[in-house]
């Protein structure tokens, strides 16, 4: 099948956005993919989806990002979307300690439903609300180190570190993947390029689809 110009990328990485409701997941996504922010955005019902293609480590990466409803009840439908994700952005709100306390529960959720080698990044959002801050950077940093997560603080409103957060997790995924393909016996880079999405469990749906459509 011929590649359309807008489908031109070296890798397709699936990433999920998770975390309590109201922490700013949907706005981080709209800031990253459309450079938009909305103070009065609707709550997310079920799952939403957006993509952006960008350069990471000299490669063209298409990030396919799934945004999920944060309320616990919705995990019945959202957890299916963790499957096949190479990365997870786990967001809390720096002004709401309970959303930080719940991070461990989200980690458990990922352990139960996501691939075991998923790259996880902890994000403390809403740093623009300085006077309302209730979760110290050091606490979150310490927690992230202990759990082996990368960590960054962002403001979707002021567009602070949003680009960097996505860049960082995508690079991390890229590094893991390129290491893996070097280690395997297969003629690595070209096969990756043609397969587009790679390095996900056999149960991943979108991967299969993209692989098939290019062959």
């Amino acid at each position, binding site marked *: 099948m011929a590649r359309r110009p807008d489908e031109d990328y070296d890798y397709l990485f699936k990433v999920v956005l998770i975390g309590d409701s109201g922490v700013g997941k949907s706005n981080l996504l709209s800031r990253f993919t459309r450079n938009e922010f909305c103070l009065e955005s609707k709550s997310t*019902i079920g799952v939403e989806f957006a993509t952006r293609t960008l350069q990471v480590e000299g490669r063209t990466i298409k990030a396919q990002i799934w945004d999920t409803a944060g309320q616990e009840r919705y995990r019945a439908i959202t957890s299916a979307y963790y499957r096949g994700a190479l990365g997870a952005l786990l967001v809390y709100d720096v002004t709401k300690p309970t959303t930080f306390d719940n991070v461990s529960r989200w980690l458990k959720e990922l352990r139960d439903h996501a691939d075991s080698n998923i790259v996880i990044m902890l994000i403390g959002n809403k740093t623009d609300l300085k006077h309302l801050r209730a979760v110290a950077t050091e606490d979150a940093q310490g927690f992230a180190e202990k759990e082996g997560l990368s960590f960054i603080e962002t403001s979707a409103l002021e567009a602070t570190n949003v680009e960097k957060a996505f860049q960082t997790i995508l690079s991390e995924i890229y590094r893991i993947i390129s290491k893996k393909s070097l280690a395997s016996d297969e003629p690595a880079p070209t096969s990756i390029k043609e397969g587009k999405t790679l390095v996900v469990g056999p149960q991943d749906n979108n991967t299969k689809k993209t692989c098939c459509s290019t062959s």
Partner: protein
Amino acid sequence: MEKKRVEEQEGVPVALPKVDRFGFVKQETSATDGPTKSRSALEHEREERRIRKWRKMIGVGGSDWKHYVRRKPHVVKRRIRKGIPDCLRGLVWQLISGSRDLLLMNPGVYEQLVIYETSASELDIIRDISRTFPSHIFFQQRHGPGQRSLYNVLKAYSVYDRDVGYVQGMGFVAGLLLLYMSEEDAFWLLVALLKGAVHAPMEGLYLVGLPLVQQYLFQLDHLVKEYLPKLGEHFAQEMINPSMYASQWFITVFSYSFPFHLALRIWDVFLFEGVKIVFKVGLALLKYCHDDLVKLPFEKLIHALRNFPNDAMNPDMLLPMAYSIKVSKRLEELKEEYEKENGKLSDRIRQKLQPS
């Protein structure tokens, strides 16, 4: 009615924003508005006649309604499918949903729930209040009457039914009702819907595990494959499943992201005929856009399924198409099929509610 009330905020006079005829703040190219062309005298006359007919059918304060429905159910069904006149909508919705009876049987209950009870969901509700119909003038003002009513109704319900509590999406249902009736009326209509006063109870959409959402998505998946085989095949190839686009159709009965004039028309029928109209409208949308959809790859497909073109949203085109799609028998069979695998809905609910 309260939706007309637009007051300045905190004493600062503000220019009134431009709103469409339902009270949504207008964007430049507003898709929420229905046809706005000025009506001819003839059309106006026809509308007046329609309202008179409706008034007669309902009787004073709804006194003749039950009698009329029993005598001429087909006339009522046909008229509702053409759309309930907007000025009578609130009243008629209460009559057809059975909420009027609930209200009369439970005097003082709502007040009790609002004033004296506390709910574990209060913070969850507050967090979503300003994220429910944020572009509607009635709900825009922080702590204004719209937001307060919405909070009260949702809180009252979360106390009334602690198993359901509050789930995101319920706010859009309650919000839509509040544009047409008082808080207390909206509350009892919510009860009538979730507890199934007339049709199948909706509570399974919101209970732990969202068991009814899962069942409806299963049913829709099969209906698409059977009714639109080519599209069904394309969805299968592109790995699209209904949870990616249709959860909100069921959870909010099209009130989350569809143009309001269309949502209202769907609600008219939904309250009278039940959930099968949601399947029918869903299938009609897919059918109308079929030839475009079958050409799209995964990502564009998802986008298209969440952003149907404006011409597809015309109720006078879409609804007749929906009515012509027959789903009742297959829905019943598919439900049985689903239950064979997963157990009866009541058992599925009980299982989830009892901590194992």
